């Protein structure tokens, strides 16, 4: 009643008006569109989550239970021992301190590698986008082709190069290797990002007297946070999960966490402890996952800016 009263003035002029639709179009939660939309999303989400479910469930089971072979059944008896073992007591040869051993090595490898590779690639992208010089395109095309070279093929040439410059086996050598292999895709990303920024900003800064580095550091950098987040995500994922370079170009005392992971998982002989393997994988993936969570929104925005223009 009171509802009708308050709206009366608008519709009083003509009683027929009540019949016609007015106001916002009603949206049913269970419209066909929504059923299709969320239905598809949930099915897809299930596909994406199924392996995670199996991993988590397995990692919480004891080995006898795993031998039963029912990978989908929830653990009868939840045990966190595999997690503890994966982290702190799984053995790599003689060293039985699990993933924790390589964790700090991984950090020590990942941080400088990510920083250096992004630093180099961003400067490259900037130079390519804003300071086109003769021959730059050729190098860029070579770089893009380089993105297609299987890493393994390059192991020997790089061994030779590193040996010749005397960096073989050192952390700096590894950092250089990561920078080299991160360069193609990152340079592409940065180049496209900087190319999409208004040219006039760059020109304005030149008229203002800033030089190559001045413009980069003071104008471009502060504006390109999103693309840096993208690059960080790509590189953190790539370098953190890298095994081949980490093990080929360093020494045992600086082996990254993935060497431990590989050792836990890939023992050819002896018993395979699947629960520990799963726990170890999830643990190893946590760092990139945390980076994703933190930068979820920026990720999408950053790529937008980088990729949308040619």
């Amino acid at each position, binding site marked *: 009643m009171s509802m009708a009263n308050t709206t009366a003035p608008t519709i009083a002029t003509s009683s027929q008006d009540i019949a016609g639709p007015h106001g916002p179009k009603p949206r049913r939660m269970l419209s066909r569109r929504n059923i299709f939309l969320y239905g598809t999303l949930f099915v897809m989400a299930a596909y994406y989550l199924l392996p995670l479910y199996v991993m988590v469930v397995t990692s919480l089971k004891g080995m006898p239970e795993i*031998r039963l*072979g029912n990978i989908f059944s929830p653990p009868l008896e939840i045990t966190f021992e595999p997690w503890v073992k994966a982290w702190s007591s799984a*053995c*790599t*040869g*003689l*060293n*039985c301190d699990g993933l924790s051993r390589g964790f700090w090595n991984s950090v020590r490898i990942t941080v400088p590698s990510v920083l250096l590779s992004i630093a180099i690639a961003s400067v490259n992208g900037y130079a390519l986008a804003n300071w086109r010089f003769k021959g730059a395109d050729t190098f860029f095309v070579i770089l893009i082709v380089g993105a297609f070279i299987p890493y*393994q093929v390059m*192991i*020997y040439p790089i*061994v030779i190069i*590193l*040996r010749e410059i005397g960096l*073989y*086996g050192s952390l700096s050598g590894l950092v250089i290797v990561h920078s080299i292999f991160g360069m193609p895709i990152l340079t592409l990303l940065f180049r496209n990002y900087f190319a999409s920024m208004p040219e006039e900003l760059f020109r304005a800064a030149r008229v203002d007297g800033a030089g190559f580095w001045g413009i980069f550091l003071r104008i471009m950098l502060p504006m390109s946070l999103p693309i840096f987040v993208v690059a960080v995500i790509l590189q953190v994922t790539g370098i953190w999960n890298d095994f081949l370079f980490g*093990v*080929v*170009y360093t*020494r*045992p*005392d600086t082996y990254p966490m993935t*060497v431990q992971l*590989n*050792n*836990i*998982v*890939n*023992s*050819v*002989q*002896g*018993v*395979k402890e699947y629960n520990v393997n799963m726990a170890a994988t999830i643990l190893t993936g946590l760092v990139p996952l945390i980076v994703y969570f933190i930068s979820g929104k920026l990720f999408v925005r950053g790529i937008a800016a980088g990729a949308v223009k040619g």
Partner: protein
Amino acid sequence: TDLEVTHWWTSGGEAAAVAELAKAFDATGNHWVDGAIAGSGGTARPIMISRITGGDPMGATQFNHGRQAEELVQAGLMRDLTDVATKGKWTEVVRPKSLLDSCTIDGKIYCVPVNIHSWQWLWLSNEAFEKAGVPVPKDWNEFVAAAPALEKAGIVPLAVGGQAWQSSGAFDVLLAAVGGSDAFLKVYKDKDAKFAAGPEVAKVFKAADDARKMAKNTNVQDWNQATNMVITGKAGGQIMGDWAQGEFQVAGKTAGKDYTCLPGLGLNEVIATGGDAFYFPLLKDADKSKAQEVLAETLLDPKTQVAFNLKKGSLPVRGDVDLNAANDCMKKGLAILAKGAVIPWTDQLLSQDTQKQKEDLFAEFFAKPELTVDEAQKRFADLIASAD
């Protein structure tokens, strides 16, 4: 002195075995720096080779006992151990003698064999045969005959994991068992392609054909998953090396009661002397070179040998050691070894290249029923013809 040792022994038992080596080495006043890389030679080897050629060599490194390090030696990157060997009278203590042959290049000794792993075993699940209502077979032929009964009971007769080295290894075992030691040597040592194309080897291929039919429903990749099928009675048997024993032990199974092991498939009881050896890159540091010598000696020390091999589940390389603690199957192996029924293993006879090609062939053969026995044998003979 610190000495870095790289190897690919990372699983529980292996690591424990390595620990024995380390302990013994540390007792000499030196320090074993462990550089374990898991994932079989394929993962570890490029790393080791890169390190050696990259000018940053480790103190010592494991290779499969065989020809894997040949070129490194030829390139002058590895250390000559002849002096140490002479001092330790290796030629006398190492048994079988052929083990040392593989370490010898141009009359110089470059490696230290540490164990013998043999491939020639057929592991059978007693439970599976019980279920199928047939007695546990005594040799390969009985096993093949029992296959239909097993299949009827819903049991996969023979478990062969999907990875290439498993099918290739199974064939080699069949070759030595069905064809006999001579045939094995003729093919792999003499690389007699004509013989490989001949009727004797055809018999082996026939056996392999049986094997692949029996293995058709295996559906697992890893060897230990296949072993697990035997353990749980889902499969009747598996051709696998002595390392499979560890799986049975961990699962709490007892040899003879729960499972049966048939060396040489019960047909030709020989042991192939595959195994692991340590190589020592040439180092500039005199102290380290000294430590290398100490390590080489330590590795062959009788006490170390026993402690190491008991943990590793392999056989020691010297005959003068006491192995009372060994289990049933291991004792069978020791007995054969004592009889001198040994053959060299493919690692020692063939280059890795040829081995890989062989793996490819047998992986295909076991997985692809359309590949006929004749066709496969022809390709095998070609392969042997170009083998090195």
